[in-house]
């Protein structure tokens, strides 16, 4: 049995130079806003870590990238990332980001929000931005529940799982987000859990370099609401569930990606294709209009 370390011993272990070192992600995080509001065991921080690492890896010009969030736990991400960041109304992050992108096509646009914000109240904007193929990366942190408001059922809550507004179990089948993105026209679709930090980071890097509507679903534990009401333990237990049940199947048909309650989670990169983006099509059209080729109807 290990003997408990005394304070003296602990002190010796601390590298004195660490006090002067800056946080490795200080250039992309608003350190003056830390500590963040997320609960212990929550996975959103991991998704942000992966995103911050991806920004560095993708060598993005940090002054030319804008991050837009909606409302909810993940909606707070924009406030902690040191980029031009916007915290919009509930559900409208993609619509707002569309305005930024088409008014200033030089900007790299990232929407970072939750499943409720993007798929329920913002579902219409999600499918239409995918259809238009607006050049943006949409990061959808999916925790299966409305967590900010205290654990209500979401359009991603697995069938039979409990939530405060379905106290006898969820009766509605959830959305399969990669399938929705794929069928609406997204050019890059991947899903990872927040346990797969390295793969999630790589997905962000790929999607940031991809032109067109890219969707990365990050399945993340809600250790306070989803986990507690469903008796799933703490954040670590949920990570263990991901560890034991996540199966990597790159290129899998997005039809097969439904998630059952505590069932298998298929992760991987499913779609990576080329389609002209909205801006490309618009510019081509504009040059025709200006050249007199396209007459008004």
């Amino acid at each position: 049995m290990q003997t408990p370390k005394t304070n003296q011993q602990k002190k010796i272990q601390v590298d004195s130079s660490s006090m002067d070192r800056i946080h490795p992600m200080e250039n992309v995080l608003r350190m003056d806003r830390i500590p963040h509001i997320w609960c212990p065991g929550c996975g959103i921080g991991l998704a942000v870590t992966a995103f911050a690492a991806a920004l560095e890896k993708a060598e993005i010009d940090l002054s030319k990238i804008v991050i837009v969030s909606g409302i909810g736990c993940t909606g707070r991400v924009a406030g902690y990332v040191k980029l031009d960041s916007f915290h919009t109304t509930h559900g409208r992050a993609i619509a707002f980001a569309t305005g930024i992108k088409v008014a200033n096509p030089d900007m790299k646009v990232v929407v970072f929000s939750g499943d409720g914000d993007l798929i329920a109240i913002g579902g219409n904007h999600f499918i239409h931005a995918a259809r238009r193929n607006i050049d943006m990366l949409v990061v959808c942190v999916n925790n299966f529940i409305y967590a900010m408001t205290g654990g209500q059922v979401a359009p991603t809550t697995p069938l039979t799982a409990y939530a405060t507004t379905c106290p006898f179990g969820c009766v509605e089948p959830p959305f399969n987000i990669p399938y929705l993105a794929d069928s609406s026209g997204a050019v890059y679709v991947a899903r990872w859990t927040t346990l797969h930090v390295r793969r999630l980071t790589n997905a962000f890097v790929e999607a940031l370099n991809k032109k067109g509507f890219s969707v990365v679903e990050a399945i993340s534990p809600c250790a306070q609401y989803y986990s507690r009401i469903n008796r799933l333990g703490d954040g670590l237990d949920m990570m263990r569930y991901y560890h034991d049940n996540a199966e990597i199947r790159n290129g899998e048909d997005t039809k097969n990606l439904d998630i059952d309650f505590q069932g298998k989670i298929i992760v991987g990169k499913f779609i990576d294709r080329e389609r002209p983006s909205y801006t490309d099509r618009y510019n081509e059209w504009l040059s025709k209009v200006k050249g007199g080729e396209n007459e008004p109807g």
Partner: protein
Amino acid sequence: MKADQRDVLTGVYYIDGDVASGYGALAAGCKFIAGYPITPSTEAAEAFARIAPKGGAMFIQMEDELASISAIVGAAWAGAKTMTITSGPGYSLMMETIGYGAMLETPFVLLNIQRGGPSTGVPTKTGQADMMQARWGSHGDYELIAIAPDSPQELFDHTIKAFNLAEKYRCPVMIMADECVGHMTEKVVIPRAEEIELEPRRWYTGPPDEYIPFKPDEDLVPKMVKAGSGHKLFISGRLHDERGYPVDNEHFELKYVRRLIDKIMCNKDKIIELKEEQLDDADVVVVSYGISSRVAVRGIEMAREKGIKVGNLRLITVWPFPDERITELAKKVKAFVVPEINYGQVVFDVARCCHGNANVVLVPHGGAGVHMPDDICDAILLGAKEERKIEKVIEFKTQLEKLVFKGGSKLKE
């Protein structure tokens, strides 16, 4: 700052109000309109979509009104002058983001070609029943500017005016036109670009590290930067401090939300535009706006022919409301007559400002039509005749009402 030559379609036109507004938006330097089709506002969107490429502007038809207004707020923060175009039901859908725009102090213009309501109402015919919605529609405390043009020419001119006000005060500006004005075809003169004065955006030009997004200038309006200019903005609809960071306490609510109101209210004198006619000797004053003010002109003429001293006060700016002017007039005149195409909205603000010093006569009219000038004339006569001080707003019974209800609505009898 003068308008860009490429944006101004100088000439004399015979066009409807909607189209004139679309032309006005381009002349004002609007580079981005997002909209969703809704009668009777579609012609404005169509006109803009057709001329936009010429001026390097663009029109995008979004999936709904929620998206349209969100996109223009986004585009405004990307540096563009922006507008959206809608009517009744679409206007209701936009309410949340109007408040968001006010909270973020985002300059944008919203053209509402009002139709008969409520709900789907009378899509192809007129109404003026969104006036209070313009004032109070989004939740929480905020102030914005609303103007009411009464002709296609004004829809051109006032669209430019709306953009100028939006930039100057960094707030949403509503153009509260109505179907009659929107669909009315008249002569519209578009001047040369150098005759059009534009208000530039209040850009911040100092060192990027010293920029504080919500630190107000002396007139209470802060400077703006656009996304992508290296300022690492954080902009949120949450109650925030000057840096834009969320705060949760009553001190900031008082400091910040109070300023959102004060920046409009303290600059009221510079914002409000009224058109006053024959007020010097008036016993009765007609207060009107939009299409009702055009009908009122004939009613006033008829009353003058009958020897009544009646003047005309046209609200070109409806919000903020000209409280002081109404209060001042109320001390001198016997009555105000307020014709509106609704069952009483702006009239109650007139009554509020009278402080009991003058009577107030409402000439109501349901959507789908405009007043008869005779009604306005009779209401003026009623106002001139009534010697008693009536404590509540006097509701004039129109000919239409008498006809439909055969002598008056049962409930009121």
